[in-house]
Each structure stands twice: as C-alpha cells, then as structure tokens.
C-alpha cells in the first residue's frame, strides 16, 4: 500500500492522489492512528459546513443570488475536498487495518477500468437515478390524484414532468442496459475487456456526473428544465425558461450524449475487432447482437441531438439565433425526432436481447428463426428507425406528402417487430417452459409489448393520431413499451445474470412476488391512461369530473408500483451478501459468459469443463453440479499500486489497471459546464468554467503522460475473429467510428445553417460580410496541411524520424496559422460591433466556424503530443499507428472545411 503517512498538508495529499504520484516510497508504511481531537475537529468542521449549506440554501430570495451561490459553492467544494481527504488518508473512527480496506475499496470503484466493475457501477448508478425519476413520478401522480389539486404548483409540476422523462430515459434506462452490456458482452464474445478501458471509465463518469448535474438544476436559480423531455422550441429559449438552471440542464444532457458517443465507439470496436477464438458472427449470442443493433443506432442518432444541443446551448449562452429564427421550432422538431425515434428503439433493444437470451434457456429450445430475427432487425428496424421520425410531427406544418410517407414507413417498421414477436412466441410454443423469475419477466415484457405496439400502430395512422395526439393515450402507449417492455426485460436480465455477477442466487420467492406485484401494479397505473384518451397530457391539473376516477386509480397503481420495488431492492441487498452460493452455470445456458474460463482460464486458475451443451432438462439451483466455491465477483478487491487485484476464487486472482484520469476529466468537464451555465447570471460562472477546463486539461495531460511513460496497460486482446475488418486495427476502427458520428454531427449543423438561411428573408451576398481573400488564404493553408501530415506518415514508414518531426512541425504550424486567421476574422467582426446575435447570417457563421476551429484545436494538441513522443524516439518504422490515425482525423477536419468555406464565403 502506498501511503504518505499523514504528515503532508492535505491539499498536497489530494493533489497527489488525483495526479497519481507516490509521495512516499515505503510501500508498507503503517497507517498513523489519529488522535481523537483530530477526529472531533473534522466532524466539527463538517457539521459547520453542513449547517452553513442548509442555511445558505434557505436564504430568502431577496439576498443577492450571486452571494448565495458563491457561498454555497464554496461550501460544497470544501466539503467534498475534506471528504476525499479523510476517505483516503485519515483512518478516522476506524482501526488502521479497516481504514486501509476502506481506502482500497474506494480506489477500486473510483479508478477502475475493468468492464465488470464499470458495468456494476453503471447498474448501481442507474438504479439511483431510477429512484430520483421515480420520486418525481410519484409527486406528479399525487398532484393528479384528485381534480383541482394544488399539491404541486404548475411550475413544479412541469419541472417534475420534464426531468422525470429525461432522467428515466437517459440516466436510468439506457445506462442500466449498458451496465449489463458492459458486464456481459465482453464475456459473451470472449474479449478480455472493452477495446478502450479508460474511455469506458470516462463514459461512466460522464454519465454519473452529468446525472448529478441534472439533479442539481432543481436547486439553481431558474430551476430545472420545465418544457417537457422533448425540449420543444421556443419553450427552451431564455424567454420562456430563464435562468442558469435550464442551461445547466441542457449541458448535463449534452454530457450524457457525449458519454454515449464515446461508449458506442468503444463497443462497436470491441464487438467487431475483439471477438475471441471461435466467436464468428454466426456464433455471437443474441444479447450481444441486440447490443450491436443498439450501438449502430446510437452511432447515427446521437450526433444529431448532440448538434441540436450545441446549438441550443449556444443560443442561450452566446446569443446565437438558431431556434429563435423563423422556423426554429420546426428545425428543433426535425433534429430531435430524427434522434428521438431511434432512441425509443435504443432503450428497447437491449431488453429484447435479454429476452432472446432467456427464452431458449428456459424452454430448452433454440430460439425460433434466429436468422429471421437478426435479418429483420438489422435490415429493417435499424435503417427504418431513421425514416419514421415524422410520425411525431403529424400536427406540425410538415407537407402532407411527407406526413403520408412517414405514416407508411411507420406502419412498415411494425412488420419486423411482428416477426420478432412471432418468433418469440413460437419458441414458447415448441418448448417446455420453466417459470423461474427471469422467464416470468421475459414473458411479461412480451405480453405488455404487444399491447404497447398495437397502440403505437393506432398512433401511426394520421387520422387517429389527430384525435389522440397530446393525450394520455400517448402516455399510455409509451409507458407500456418503455416500462413494460424495456424495464421488465431488464428486470429479467437482472435475475438472469445475478448469479453470474455476484456468485450468489437471489431469493426466488421474493423475486416471484416482485414480478406478480409489479405486473399488477403496472397495469393499474397505466391502463387507465388508455381510458383517458381525451385528457391532454402534460397538464398539471384538471376539473373534468369524468377524468377523476381513472386518475385516482392510476395514482394508487403508481404508489403500489413504486412500493413493491422495495421487494426488489431488499432481495438484491440481501442476496448479494447472504444469498445461497450459486454454481457456475445455474441455468445451464450455452453462452460463453457462463463458462467463466474466458477470465479464469488464462489466469492459471482452475478451468471447469463446459458442462451444459447436452441441455439436460430439470434445472436445479445447485443440485446437479458438484462445483461449489462461490465466485467472488463483488468481493472487495485490493488496490495495489495502480492495479486492482480481485480474488475470484481461492488461488485465482484477476488484475486490472486503474486510472485516475477518467474520473478527473469527467469531473473537470462537469465543473466547467456548471460554470458555463452560470455565465451571464453570476460572477462565479467564468471562474468555474476556467477551473473545470483547467482540471480537465491537467487530467488530459496526465493521460498523455501515462501513455508516454507506459503507465497503463490494456489487456492484450486475442484478436482472432475480426471479419469483415480483418486488416483494420482497433485504433483505426475506433477513429473511423468517431469520424462517422462526427460526419453526422456536422451534417446536422450544416443542414441547420442552410435551413436558417433558406428561412431568412434576405441574406448578405458573398464578399459583403466575410473577406473572400482572407477565406481563400486560410483555406489554402489548411488544405496544404493535409499533405504535410501525409508526408509525416510517409517519412516514418521509411524509418525517417527527423522527417517525421519536421513534417509534423510543418502541419502544426499550418494548423496554428489557420486557427489564428479564423480568430483574426472574428476579432475584425467584433471590432466593428458585430457578434453572434447580430443577424442570422452571423449567428450561423460564428457557431459553425467555432465548432470547426475547436476540431482543429484538438488536432493541434494531438500534434504536440505526437511531436513530443517522436522526439523521444517513440515511433519507429514498424510502430507508428498514432501518426496514421492522426492523419486520418486531420484530413477529415480539412474535408469538412471544404464544405464550410463555400457555404459562408462563396454562395
């Protein structure tokens, strides 16, 4: 254990911890036991801070908002610093040995890069957000219980409503599914980990911090987002949603989208390029397949909302005019639903994958028509999901022919779903059903999905939708699919994989109780909504007497539904620690995650022969298999140096590198976005933004430092099955996937530019606003830097290290001059009193150029890294992949400019 024996000032201690250096070399220095007075002092300070923050949060609004925020932020920051310090360095209240274990435990979960640990973190965090979202739902249902109720004000109701939707979809459903994906997918395809373990940790921490940021908005001036989860424009403008709260909320959403983008790239590369021996695409299990489908949709859908959120935040922070220009509402609608419809499948598909995994195991049959399911999903659902978004816009000014097209495509997309459901049912018909809890939840999900799907088809018909649009019928529809199909499917996954993740069995009686009570309460809650087909959704109260009874029943159902989840939590909490030890493959499934040898085998541990291929009937929990020791996946693992060491079984350990960088980067970004949201409302905005950027910058520098000094090792993949990309490395696949989503991001933004332009009555002619000469010069400079980057690669291919450095330096110089010229033009415009708010033309110009310039900036930083590494002899004739990857990225940024330049300077 490294230790700095408590004599170093604590800010140095915290800094050293974050920067990840060893202050004291003695590995075994004893932990100093604290004097009681120090402990008392600590608690005194903490108590004062807590009281102070409560008082401050309660100050009446007459006192200066800035002052209040300043003090409460200082309180929050200091409390966290103190907590971190004591968690890591002071064995307060604890005996030395215990303190060491707490410390090791904390480091494991904060710094882990192991896919199983991160999967666990995702699941636990997602459940926390489910609690937050669920509480908001109960508040809303309480308000709607009786007519003319005033339990919540209209504003609070709107905030609860909007944040409930956002939190449940983005911080609960998707992350829960990705918890399972993180844990199970690498095991199913026999990969040692995800392709980029640190990026995986970064995704997790961005998700966790963004969720916390979203929850904080309730306590900021302006409050939380209150315009519905769809964020329709113009409700999101500063006019209707003033204050920093909503801006921070949008930033939180944006960070979550960033997290999803990073993990999509990570997963797609893992699933394509890291499949272990024998896992050809025909052998990939159903759950992994459905995660592949989900990821493909994510890669294409999320950049659109990322672009939309960039523009929205720019509108609020930098006064651009995207969504306040004429037609802004329709622009938002299109961008949001282009993303939004695929998103509803994104939350559905992991659950379908789990169901497709569970059905065959509990019927002792292979899944019926596996190929048909896969083909229907991949060739119809995935592409069509991008062509149906207009069914959310039937009541807008969309041209009639376009509405009709969307109606037809929507009905078309229900067909492949019929194939899937029929295949599921046929599997049941032919099999011998074993009703254990995972199976119950899977069956429940299918039944409920059928109801939800049918109501969806009603809504897809334009005449019916005109009637139902904006009513509780729609609310009923999407809760049947989202809660019924998605959440129940994931509950099934929970019970199914619980023994794999904890080495213990859950309590079957409690679990079955959980199923039946949930199923009943679910229907009591949501079925009345189909009856309320004339009640508008999103209203905070009503006076129509006929609506009273269904609403009352629904509220009772909601209380029940929330209440019975306690059974689930108790079962989990108890079974993790006290459940009966499980055997290795309690369900006798055939997929690789149950073989365990993907992780045990090559660590020299005992390898059990795979025992399940003969599909014996009659599944006992533990009676059939002689193997007993509990596999301690959730066992506390030691952190030794920069590795976590987990004892999986006696004599079998698993080691994994840790990294402090992901959590620090994500924390920095979250602090920075908090600051950006406050800019313009509070003098602390800028310092916070700068502080966040600084933290993030230092951590990024540290990441590069780690790489230069070989301080982080990724588990060597076996890299056996890579079809159809046999000749493409995982780094290159990664950068290309990132480029694909970036293409969509820029397409969304450039299209929005064109849209704004075509909706604006008069647009300045070329040459009047932007000097063409300057544009031409900077374009020629940028376009010349691509060949320079290419020459750098050519040099190192021949082993010419000097040439590499020279050409990289030339590229760096050209790129810097380019960005310099862009900012020079900005300064000219600012000097003549023009800014993003001046006109639609300037608003699109500043935004788009700014986004591109920041892409260039990223490239410049990467080049500095490459030059440093090259000068240390880090690249050789054989080993220079980073140079190649950089060249691809850099040329991509140039290629984008080839569209931007004419758009703003020439046409």
């Amino acid at each position, binding site marked *: 254990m490294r230790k700095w024996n408590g004599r170093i000032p604590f800010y140095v201690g915290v800094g050293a911890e974050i920067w990840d250096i060893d202050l004291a070399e003695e590995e075994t220095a004893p932990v100093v036991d604290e004097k009681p007075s120090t402990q008392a002092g600590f608690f005194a300070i903490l108590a004062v801070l807590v009281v102070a923050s409560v008082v401050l949060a309660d100050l009446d609004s007459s006192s200066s908002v800035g002052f209040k925020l300043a003090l409460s932020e200082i309180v929050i920051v200091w409390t966290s610093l103190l907590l971190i310090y004591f968690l890591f360095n002071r064995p307060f209240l604890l005996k030395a040995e215990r303190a060491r274990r707490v410390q090791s435990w904390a480091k494991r979960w904060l710094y882990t890069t192991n896919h199983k640990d991160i999967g666990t973190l995702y699941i636990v965090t997602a459940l926390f957000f489910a609690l937050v979202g669920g509480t908001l739902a109960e508040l809303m249902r309480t308000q709607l219980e009786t007519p003319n109720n005033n339990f919540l004000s209209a504003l609070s109701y709107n905030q609860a409503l909007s944040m409930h939707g956002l939190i449940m979809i983005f911080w609960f459903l998707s992350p829960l599914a990705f918890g399972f994906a993180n844990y199970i997918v690498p095991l199913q395809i026999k990969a040692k980990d995800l392709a980029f373990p640190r990026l995986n940790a970064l995704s997790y921490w961005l998700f966790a911090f963004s969720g916390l940021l979203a929850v904080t908005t309730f306590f900021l001036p302006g409050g939380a987002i209150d315009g519905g989860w769809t964020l329709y424009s113009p409700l999101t403008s500063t006019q209707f949603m003033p204050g920093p709260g909503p801006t921070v909320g949008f930033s939180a959403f944006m960070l979550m989208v960033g997290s999803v983008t990073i993990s999509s790239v990570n997963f797609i590369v893992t699933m394509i390029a890291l499949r272990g021996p024998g896992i050809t695409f025909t052998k990939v299990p159903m759950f992994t397949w459905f995660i592949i489908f989900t990821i493909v949709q994510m890669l294409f859908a999320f950049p659109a909302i990322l672009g939309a959120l960039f523009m929205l935040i720019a509108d609020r922070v930098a006064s651009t005019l995207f969504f306040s220009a004429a037609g802004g509402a*329709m622009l938002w609608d299109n961008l949001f639903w282009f993303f939004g419809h695929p998103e509803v499948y994104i939350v559905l598909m992991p659950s379908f994958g789990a169901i497709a995994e569970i059905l065959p195991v509990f019927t002792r049959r292979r899944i019926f028509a596996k190929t048909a399911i896969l083909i229907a999903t991949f060739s119809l659902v995935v592409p069509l999901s991008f062509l149906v978004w207009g069914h959310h816009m039937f009541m807008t000014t*969309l*041209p009639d022919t376009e509405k009709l097209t969307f109606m037809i495509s929507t009905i078309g997309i229900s067909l492949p779903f019929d194939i899937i459901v029929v295949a599921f049912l046929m599997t049941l018909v032919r099999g011998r059903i074993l009703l254990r809890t995972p199976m119950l939840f899977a069956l429940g999900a299918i039944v409920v999905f059928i109801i939800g799907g049918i109501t969806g088809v009603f809504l897809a018909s334009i005449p019916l939708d005109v009637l139902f649009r904006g009513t509780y019928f729609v609310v009923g529809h999407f809760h049947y699919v989202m809660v019924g199909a998605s959440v129940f499917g994931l509950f099934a996954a929970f019970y199914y994989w619980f023994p794999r993740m904890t080495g213990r069995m859950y309590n079957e009686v409690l679990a079955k109780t959980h199923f039946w009570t949930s199923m009943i309460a679910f229907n009591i809650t949501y079925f009345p909504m189909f009856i309320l087909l004339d009640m508008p959704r999103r209203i905070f109260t009503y006076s129509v007497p006929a609506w009273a009874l269904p609403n009352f029943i629904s509220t009772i159902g909601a209380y029940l539904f929330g209440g019975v989840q306690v059974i689930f939590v108790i079962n989990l909490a108890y079974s993790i620690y006290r459940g009966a030890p499980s055997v290795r493959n309690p369900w006798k499934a055939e997929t690789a995650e149950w073989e365990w040898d993907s992780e045990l085998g090559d660590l020299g541990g005992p390898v059990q022969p795979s025992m399940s291929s003969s599909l014996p009937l009659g599944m006992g929990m533990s009676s059939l298999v002689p193997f007993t020791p509990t596999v301690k996946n959730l066992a506390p693992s030691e952190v030794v140096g920069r590795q976590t060491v987990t004892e999986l079984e006696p004599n079998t350990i698993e080691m994994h590198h840790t990294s402090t960088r992901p959590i620090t980067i994500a924390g920095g970004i979250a602090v920075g976005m908090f600051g950006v949201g406050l800019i313009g409302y509070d003098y602390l905005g800028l310092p916070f933004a700068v502080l966040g950027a600084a933290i993030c910058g230092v951590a990024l520098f540290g990441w590069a430092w780690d790489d230069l000094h070989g301080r982080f090792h990724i588990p060597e993949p076996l890299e056996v099955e890579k079809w159809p990309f046999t000749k493409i490395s995982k780094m290159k696949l990664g950068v290309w996937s990132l480029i694909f989503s970036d*293409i*969509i991001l820029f397409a969304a933004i450039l299209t929005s530019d064109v849209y704004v332009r075509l909706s604006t009555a008069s647009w300045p002619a070329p040459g009047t606003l932007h000097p063409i000469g300057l544009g031409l010069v900077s374009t*020629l400079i940028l376009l010349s830097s691509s*060949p320079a980057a290419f020459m750098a690669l050519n040099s190192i291919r021949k082993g010419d290290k000097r040439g590499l450095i020279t050409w990289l330096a030339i590229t760096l110089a050209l790129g810097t001059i380019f960005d310099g010229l862009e900012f020079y033009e900005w300064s000219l415009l600012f000097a003549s009193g023009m800014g993003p708010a001046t006109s639609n033309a300037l608003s699109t110009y500043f935004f788009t150029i700014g986004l591109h310039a920041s892409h260039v900036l990223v490239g410049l930083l990467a080049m500095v890294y490459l030059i440093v590494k090259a000068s240390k002899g880090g690249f050789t004739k054989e080993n220079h992949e980073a140079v190649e990857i950089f060249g691809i990225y850099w040329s991509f940024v140039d*290629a984008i400019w080839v*569209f931007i330049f*004419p758009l703003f300077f020439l046409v």
Partner: protein
Amino acid sequence: MARFTPVLVWLYVIIGTVLQVSAEEYLRPHSVSAADAIIFLLGVSEVTLIGAYFMHLKYEQRSLLIVALLPIVIIGALIAGILVSIVS
C-alpha cells in the same frame, strides 16, 4: 502509391479552391445557380480525393469503404427531411 500522387492531389485541391473562388467572382454575377453548382461539384470532388488519399480509404479493406458510405445515406434522409419542412 506513386511518389507524386500526394503532390498531385494537393495541387488538385489547391487549384479546385482557386476555381471555386473564381466561379464566385466571375460566374456568379451572370448565373447564381451555375456558379453554385460548380462550387458544390468542385467541393465534392476535393473531398473525395482527400478521403481516398489523405484518409487512405483507397488503400484500406473494401469493407471500411462501405461503412464510410453508410452514414451518407442516413444523412441524406436527415437533410431531405429538414429541408422539405421549409418549403411549406
């Protein structure tokens, strides 16, 4: 790749850009749509060459090319959808 290929591609994009600006300067006063079309086509050809040579697509496994073109189709839908909503 022949030794001069990158130089030729570089020359093409440079000349292409100069031609774009000339189209704006000299053709646009006479015919806006002709100038815009030429500018657009030149841009597309430049991007194609950059993709093929400087992003090495020409030398990669074919499957990567297919995946690179896939987003273009989906973007097509997005662009069409958004721009159609203005017409109304």
